[in-house]
């Protein structure tokens, strides 16, 4: 029950992020999305008695729900990001498009869900989150929302890892976190160079 509720909130935060036209709100929705993911990992980890998943749950909350949003907000202040980020896809089209993606992914994932025991529908939600994150990247011209789209895509993959496989090996989870931090370093450098040149 708790897991269902959290997965619902995970999807809801991502859908809301797609309609957001302010950067700080978008960062907040990303933070909440990561928080739901972290709590979800803690709940499922506790249910399975999987210590590795509990550790990754805590790391998700600390790094993705707190650390990265704080860093993005800091960077946006430092490099004067455009904070008015109007999505290129108009709201009335998005209202049709997003449910269509959800229905389509449930249909697409149907053959897979029969093969995965346990949380089968969660796999469909993970795939739809992946598509929605891609949509988030596509519907914005500015770089900052594209970065958040990339980070949300990583969240969707993490959710797939938790639900389809009952957790990936610890080493892989840590490696993904490390790469994420490296991504932030590179993003910081890209913005830094942009500022130096301008």
């Amino acid at each position, binding site marked *: 029950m708790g897991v269902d509720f959290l997965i619902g909130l995970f999807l809801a935060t991502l859908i809301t992020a797609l309609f957001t036209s302010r950067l700080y709100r978008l960062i907040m929705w990303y933070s909440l999305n990561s928080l739901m993911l972290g709590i979800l990992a803690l709940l499922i980890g506790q249910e399975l008695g999987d210590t590795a998943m509990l550790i990754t749950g805590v790391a998700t909350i600390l790094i993705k729900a707190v650390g990265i949003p704080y860093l993005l907000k800091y960077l946006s202040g430092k490099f004067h990001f455009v904070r008015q980020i109007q999505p290129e896809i108009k709201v009335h089209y998005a209202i049709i498009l997003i449910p269509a993606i959800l229905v389509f992914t449930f249909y697409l994932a149907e*053959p897979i869900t029969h093969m995965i025991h346990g949380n089968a529908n969660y796999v469909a939600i993970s795939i739809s989150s992946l598509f929605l994150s891609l949509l988030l990247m596509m519907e914005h011209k500015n770089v900052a929302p*594209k970065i958040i789209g*990339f980070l949300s895509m990583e969240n969707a*993959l993490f959710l797939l890892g938790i639900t389809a496989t009952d957790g990936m*090996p610890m080493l892989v989870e840590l490696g993904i976190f490390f790469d994420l931090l490296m991504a932030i370093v*590179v993003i910081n450098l*890209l913005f830094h160079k942009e500022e130096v040149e301008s």
Partner: protein
Amino acid sequence: MMLTLLVLPALIMFGVSFVKNDKAKFWLPASSFLILLPIVKLFLLPKPYALLGNYLVADRLDTYVLLVSSLVGIGVTLALLTLDKHVKVSKKAYRRFYRFFAIFWIGLTVSILANHMGVYWIGLELATLSTVYMIKTNHTPAAHKEAWNYMIVGAIAISLVLFGIILMYASAKPILGEEAMRFDLLLSQADRIPSPFLFEMGFAIATLGMFIKMGFFPMNLWLANIERASFYPVAALFSGILESAVIIGFFRFSQIAEKVNYAHLFGFVFVYTLLTIFIVSFLIFRAKDFMRLFSLSGVEHMALIALFWVSGGTFAALLHFGAHAFLKPALFLSTGVLESNGKYRIAGALRGYHGKKGQLFWVLVSLFLLAIISLPPSPMFFSELYGFGAMIDTAKQSHHMLAMIGAVLLLLILLSVIFYRFVAVYQSMKYEGKTEEKKVYGSELAALVLFALCLAALLLPVSIDYLHTIGQG
């Protein structure tokens, strides 16, 4: 110990990149040569040889790929010594380029040696991210745009690979547990995977990610645009090292997919690569500068390698892979000289090189240009012969002989289009345009000589035997 020695040159490079002394850069090619010592030792050790538990294991295939990519790395460090003679680059950006090159090299060494899908992905992601900054070293608006472009498209491609890996892992986890991430175990237990459909779906998605990364259909131009916008060594690293790591992933995944359902694997890769070569050949025909020409030709060759591999032509694929990995960086590094200081006219590009160095340069570039279009005695000539032979052999075992002959004929027509374009470009470079005085430096010439020697070494009986043994076992 062996692993430490393998990453030591990259670690030295990383350390030296913080030294502000101008002469420190000479340490870089010297230290990069050090990587050959552990690789030679790896060749002598019995295979498979565990470098780090079950995570990093050296077998015949990855030792070969590691040798090829390391030689490319050495060549690029040599050519980098004179980067500032051909393009405008600040000392700080130059040092930082090396820093990210070192991270890139470590990431790809890990990927190449990985016996674990997760570790493979982590190495590839590390390399992808470090490349973003290498593209940005060129301080132009185009390079800045392409760095972001690479960051985003590269992230999508790499995410698709991870997505596929998760599905493949999920398909085998019921029988193998957490060990379902290991390539060797997956390969030996492929026929026992309880959800073959799930595995195949994962394989298709991961392959799509890898193909996007190599510039296959429908992303044929993104890599060419990036290589055009960045400094020439980036393109050399992409074609010689990054693509090596990507293609070895494809080799590993497809070995397992072959055991799960060969007909599906062959059909998927066959259609995809044929479509890619079809589109790329016409793009090559229209290419108007060296970078795009070589970049698109790289896509064509990677598609051929994938096609030969799934057709059972392991030897052909590996020979083609080795030849391409040496030829393409050599051509990209030559482009740096040919387009020196922003001049990139094809007409007369090979004229105006005087002295022994100049003459050796234009002879080598001519040979590389003719070798890339598979003129004998280029290793590509032999690999294509073996590859097409393998395709026909595959068709003999099915009921699609006529379709395969049609496909081979289509491929030959498309390759002729590419051949025609390259010959036209070569003639224009040599016999048209004005003659202007041009300069070649010793270090870049040394890199080209190294690549030429490596190409010749590919045709030695000992190399041919080694490649055959990979195919057999």
